[in-house]
């Protein structure tokens, strides 16, 4: 029988720093952060799309603009945000229909989302460079 008189140590201070989160939690907070980034970057994306399709001169300006190292770096960040949001989103769609909700499967798919989005960002980033 449990000792009901034992004094519990209160309050409990949990370490909620993102680095201490389990993998599914990390995917979750990155999903939110990448979503916010994508929303903020949407205006930039429209700007780039508009410039590239507007005219011959616009297309040339677009190519020069995208060639700038700082722009490339930002594009890389945007690309990661998109890829992470994409793969994490697909994972959530499967969770919605009760696929992969067990702990081992949830951990494995979280790991896959983080790894695949980072690897694809690196791969596409190298191609863009």
């Amino acid at each position: 029988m449990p000792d009901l008189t034992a004094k519990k140590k209160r309050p409990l201070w949990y370490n909620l720093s993102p680095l201490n989160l389990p993998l599914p939690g990390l995917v979750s907070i990155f999903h939110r952060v990448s979503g916010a980034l994508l929303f903020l970057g949407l205006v930039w994306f429209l700007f780039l799309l508009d410039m590239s399709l507007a005219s011959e001169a616009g297309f040339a300006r677009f190519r020069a603009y995208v060639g700038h190292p700082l722009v490339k770096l930002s594009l890389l960040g945007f690309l990661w945000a998109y890829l992470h949001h994409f793969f994490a989103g697909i994972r959530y769609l499967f969770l919605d229909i009760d696929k992969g909700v067990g702990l081992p499967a949830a951990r494995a798919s979280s790991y896959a989302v983080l790894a695949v989005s980072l690897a694809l960002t690196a791969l596409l980033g190298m191609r863009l460079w």
Partner: protein
Amino acid sequence: MVERTIVGAHYGLSGWLAQRITAIVMALATLVMVCGIWSASPLTYAIWKSLFAKWWMWLSLSLFLLSVMLHAWVGVRDILMDYIKPTGIRLALEVVFLLALAYYTVWAMQILWRI
């Protein structure tokens, strides 16, 4: 187990559903557009523009842009509801972001009509 009385409106179901549907539409459109861009080379203005003028590219891009506005609205609203507690500030921010998305929608249409 918490007893819940189910009365009233739709508890955000339409937003939840719209977020899922637009997500699937955007994922498919992304795959189509990536294939299109992958196959286009060398990347000159003429090829770039005629690529987007192809009906399946144009359809994918327009569905993508329309979906992204709806999807972003649901997401932005979720984030604001989670972190911005004072109703007045939250409402003000919601109006700002909603106006931004409305403006982006018009801008996106302008880009699409010009292709």
